[in-house]
């Protein structure tokens, strides 16, 4: 995985999702899964990747959305956006009353840029939106409580950004943490202001198995927690989940026997890896996991749920995971 600078996208999935101008042709864009992917790249270069600066993104549950390109978004106006969004939130919260822009409000909005979260030079810098509340009792007290945060990002999303005219900003992946009511207000504001649309990004079982395989192959420094796969059994009157935990070293050993070319993964390898796990399980419990649905993958790198919820655990692999998620988001948009 040392080979992998995010820019070296030799494996760009076959004939995927390049969109020409409107009313032009796009070929083979019908959600085919790529036949091969790069292993998670390590962070781009050490100089601009201070793990401290993105540490706050770790160990939180993020709900995933795909976002179509933002129209007339400008990085130079983040401060204005914060002001307008603040007024919008206040207005939404007290429906119907006019709100003066720029007045001190209960919810403070900060919009900032996260330049670290990039895959290639074409990627836009990620945008972080934070809402914090001031306690009404002591307005002068500077202590503010973070109530909601969300960020837009694009890691190696060249596929999308290359095909979009200047007026558009490609930040196809949106991650939110906090009350959904805030997600809804912030999302609506972005939709209205930049003519984009938000869509929940679910992760298919196929992509979850990709994640399981990709993340198994990653080195983690410390003794890590177990890798866990959760399966749900369909067509039962009561929901039944099967949890399958594997020692990370065992999983890694299995993966090493499966993987042929270091630094690269193919669909076939993923299938073999999962089949091995399934047959092992079948030997012990006489249950065919292949007949169930993979709903959650937890590894020391990250954990992902099919509903489109993710938790990052290693800042080292943050951009790598984001790259995969960006790819999924783009394929949902196009």
């Amino acid at each position: 995985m040392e080979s992998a600078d995010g820019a070296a996208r030799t494996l760009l999935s076959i004939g995927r999702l390049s969109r020409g101008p409107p009313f032009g042709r796009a070929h083979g864009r019908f959600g085919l899964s790529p036949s091969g992917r790069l292993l998670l790249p390590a962070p781009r270069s050490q100089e601009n990747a201070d793990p401290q600066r993105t540490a706050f993104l770790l160990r939180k549950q993020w709900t995933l959305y795909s976002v179509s390109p933002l129209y007339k978004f400008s990085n130079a106006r983040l401060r204005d956006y914060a002001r307008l969004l603040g007024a919008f939130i206040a207005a939404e919260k007290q429906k119907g009353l006019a709100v003066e822009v720029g007045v001190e409000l209960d919810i403070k909005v900060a919009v900032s840029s996260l330049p670290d979260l990039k895959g290639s030079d074409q990627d836009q810098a990620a945008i972080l939106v934070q809402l914090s509340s001031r306690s009404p009792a002591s307005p002068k007290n500077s202590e503010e409580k973070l109530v909601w945060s969300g960020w837009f990002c694009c890691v190696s999303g060249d596929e999308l950004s290359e095909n979009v005219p200047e007026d558009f900003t490609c930040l196809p992946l949106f991650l939110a943490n906090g009350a959904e009511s805030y997600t809804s207000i912030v999302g609506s504001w972005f939709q209205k202001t930049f003519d984009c649309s938000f869509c929940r990004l679910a992760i298919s079982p196929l992509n979850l198995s990709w994640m399981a395989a990709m993340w198994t192959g990653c080195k983690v420094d410390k003794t890590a927690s177990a890798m866990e796969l959760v399966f749900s059994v369909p067509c039962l009157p009561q929901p039944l989940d099967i949890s399958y935990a594997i020692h990370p070293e065992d999983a890694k050993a299995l993966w090493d026997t499966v993987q042929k070319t270091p630094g690269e993964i193919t669909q076939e390898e993923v299938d073999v890896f999962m089949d091995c796990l399934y047959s092992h399980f079948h030997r012990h419990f006489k249950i065919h996991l292949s007949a169930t649905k993979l709903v959650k993958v937890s590894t020391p790198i990250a954990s992902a749920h099919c509903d489109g919820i993710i938790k990052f655990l290693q800042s080292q692999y943050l951009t790598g995971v984001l790259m995969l998620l960006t790819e999924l988001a783009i394929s949902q948009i196009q």
Partner: protein
Amino acid sequence: MQRRQSSKTPKQPPQVHHKNQTDLSAWRKGGRTDPEKSVQIHQSPNCQKNDSKQDSLEQALRYFEKVQDRVSLKKSDVLQKHLTTVESIALQRGLPPEGFDVLLNVALSGKLADTVNTRLLKSLVPASVIPENSVVSSVSWLCVSKCSGNVQLLFLRWLITVFDFIDHKEQLHALYGFFFSFLQDEKMCPYVCHLLYLLTRKESVKPFRIRRLLDLQAKMGMQPHLQALLSLYKLYCPELVTITLPGKKKTYFKNSEGPWKAAINAVRRRNQESSPVSQPLFLGTAQPQSRKRKWNTQLIIPASSTNRNNLEEDREKNRVDLYSTNESLPLEQLQTFSQLLQNIHHLEFPSQMGSVLTNPLLLHYMNCIKDESVYLRLYYWMGQTLREECTWCVADNNQYEEEFKDFLETVYKTECFLQEGFSSCEEFLYKSLPLWDGCSCRSQVLRLVSWIPLSSFSEMKSHLYDPLAQLFFTSSLYFKCSVLESLKELLQNWLNCHVIHLDSESDSQVHSLNTTLSGLVNVVAELIHFVGWISTVALRLENNPTFLLYFILDFYETVCDMYLRYNLPLLIMPPAGVFYPALLSMDSVSLNQLCYIMYRYRTNLVAAKENELSKKRILQFKFSSQTYQEYNRYIIAMVGCLWTSSAFQKDIHPQGLQMDDELLKKTTAQEFKTSFNIVYHPAMMGYAVLFLQQAQPDDTTLNFSLIKGKKWDWYLKYLYAQGLKGLKVFIESSINRISQASHSKAEN
């Protein structure tokens, strides 16, 4: 005193009232509306009871109009009765517009006791609107202060609550000064402030008023209502109001909604239920809330609104560039086509492009503007919406089928308007057709198919034809016909688009790479072959119904004319599986249609041949000799079948009718030789019978062999007169009749 007349008109039957109910517009014109109509407007249509209520309200109003002197409530039963009538009707259905004048006059004139006045004021619940005149005249009562302070206060509170129900406000604005003068009354001051707050416009802010307000503030201290008005003044004219006001203020005004708000809402709800036109009354500017569950739901087509984001940016730019006068027209003000024309140079697209779908003016504008970002914004929005809201691709969406249908309908209409398919829609179809059951939103989906953009591109087969064919073969006859219909539209749209491109050949940019002529010919040929194939199979599956045949031949009516009408160097004959069922159809409609089609094929082929011969240079495209051969074989079969009675002998098509005489003899059919011509053809025999009956009314033997010679010509004329125009043009063009020769032929 027009109002009086209404009581004299005789009662009308209930259904007439019902009719009147729909005429809500009569109310809105304000001023003098036809009292009869408006009084009846919110009646439920069904019962006599309402009629009597109607009468009693009219009586009550007449009473209050005439009442002269102070009548004691306790002593007068009449007053009591009318007061209760007004109260109960007001609470149930609200009062009609012309009731307000009477009741406000009486309540504010001080003729009656305060208890009565209060009760009257409290029952002033509007059913629809309140005429401005009545408010103006009541303000004049206020100025002469005939009524008590409490009634004055109550009136002001009422006015604040029903402010939005007043039909016009121009005259009310003219009274701004009067209201302002009431500020000095300490009790009335808070309410007057509120009212002024509602009335104030920028031009109402005057230095002397500001001074007066500041004086009042100095006298009464920091009162929230004064602050509110001052901050509004400051907002309008910051240069005139220099004091600093505390920024934060929760509520400026006391709740003055009084007893009316709940009653107004109840009346509105009730009237909407019973009224046949559930038209929102005056406050209904907000769109009805969708019952959708997700915040990011896309199905609501956004309203067009100016892009604030850009506005602000522009303003910043303008600060730098003082000469720029290029202020754009706010979209909210764009209402008419002429406005569009006048402002077309400084219009801006809405903040959310999806809103153009419901705004024809913007669609016009979109048609003139060649801006890629416009389509791209629409592309992303529409793509996402279709994907997320599709009722058969996304579980749990079933319940929203109606909404989705409406949406697809809107998209289709937009495509028709722009004469252009959306690529997001095309992609949606390709993705969702394999999952489609052929039922949900059927007509909408099939109509959208007809706008799939033209492009030579091999995915058509796997993404459109294959899934469509599967559904086609397994669905009902009607579904098959609708598919054929929409494929015909698709073909026509492609051909039209091609013709437009031909016209604008010079700017070759329009031609995308994929639509070179040969590419186009290939795509069109692919579609026609596909339709030929499914038609053949469908005719067999369904056993050649005329209904289906009609749709198939309808498709070929476009195909046979492509060369001349659309300038496309391509002609494809129908397959034998379509041609023969039409030729041997039991129905003259199909036969006639086929004749017309063959005639058009002939005309096109002849024209093509002539062009080929006349032009020296080698044409890039010419019809292969195979096409001519195929046409000729069909013509031989047709002439044999309709004219020379030699179908069994002369037909040389491999799938044709040719049969050995030996074999024919075995059928034991008599006179098999003559079984097919315009007399004996099963589709024509009915005409032959009618013809004989008319020509020889006495002869009941129906001897068909009598139709020959001169009678043959008469028979032809008879057929043409029956509307078989296709047959006519076919015979006239394809059958060489030199009068005598043909006669002898016919006699053979």
